[in-house]
């Protein structure tokens, strides 16, 4: 079995902490495989000719995949036992192939809510055209000394 990496404890996290950056290479394979993995067969996510006929310069990443990358970005940092409670994103510049998305984030707020260590993060993914995604993620982290 894969070693279960450590998960950050609520007590270890400070407001203002920056998350380590994550760069996603936006190959056509990434755009298409993530669309299909999310069962999204809208042609603009896999067929360049039809995407261009519809006024887009190329195929572009679907929003379900952006959600997936945001979730991965957060748990890559926080660890496997961080529990996602809420992901709220707004899309801007499309993720076209042959660009890259540079993800960054920071801890905005932390509080104990009903005994749970709730942490709110701001997340951003920028590509060569500007901000592809801006959002907020809420997670629960284990507390020190808790079973």
């Amino acid at each position, binding site marked *: 079995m894969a070693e279960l990496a450590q998960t950050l404890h609520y007590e270890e996290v400070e407001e203002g902490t920056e998350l380590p950056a994550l760069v996603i290479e936006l190959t056509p394979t990434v755009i298409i495989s993530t669309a299909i993995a999310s069962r999204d067969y809208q042609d603009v996510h896999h067929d360049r000719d039809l995407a261009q006929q519809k006024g887009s310069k190329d195929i572009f990443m679907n929003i379900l995949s952006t959600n*997936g990358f945001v979730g*991965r970005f957060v748990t890559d940092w926080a660890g496997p036992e961080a529990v996602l409670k809420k992901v709220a994103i707004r899309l801007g510049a499309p993720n076209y192939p042959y660009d890259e998305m540079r993800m960054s984030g920071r801890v905005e707020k932390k509080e104990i809510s009903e005994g749970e260590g709730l942490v709110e993060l701001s997340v951003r993914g920028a590509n060569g055209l500007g901000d592809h995604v801006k959002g907020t993620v809420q997670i629960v982290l284990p507390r020190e000394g808790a079973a």
Partner: protein
Amino acid sequence: MTAPSLDDQLQEMVAQATPAPGTPARDPVNPPMIRHWCDAIGDANPVYTDPAAAEASCFGGIVAPPTMLQAWSMLGLANRGPGSKTEPPRAGGGPTQLLNEAGYTSVVATDCEQEYLRYLRPGDLLTGETELESISGEKSTGLGDGYFLTTRTTYRDQEGEVVGIMRFRILWFKPRQKGG
């Protein structure tokens, strides 16, 4: 008597909207779809794909990435025969048809807000009930002029328990003509 404007017709549809009872997802939450997703997203979290590691974690077994919530109920290529040239069916019903007929034929998703009440496990079968929440007036955007539609979907499991909530916004727009 003049015909009601597009805006009036759209707002009437919002006022009349009732939650559309969904049909159950085509497949229950399952490890192969989870693996495809994790491979494509590059997510190596073992609680999604490694039964032993998942068992040893706070989840006590395999769970689906929570951000897959919407993927479970996507239609994929359903109702679209092999080699068919027709487009996959689109959610949205009345307002979508009205907007398409008025020339707003391109669509992009712009906002998504998901709340996870519990993590999903293999075997869970989701049904999403979607309600039209609002439609904006015509907006000028970088893509072209268009209308924002906001829906709210409540996902329930096979027991009827609410497991997730999603607010989703799309923009239907008139694509700009290329090259004048």
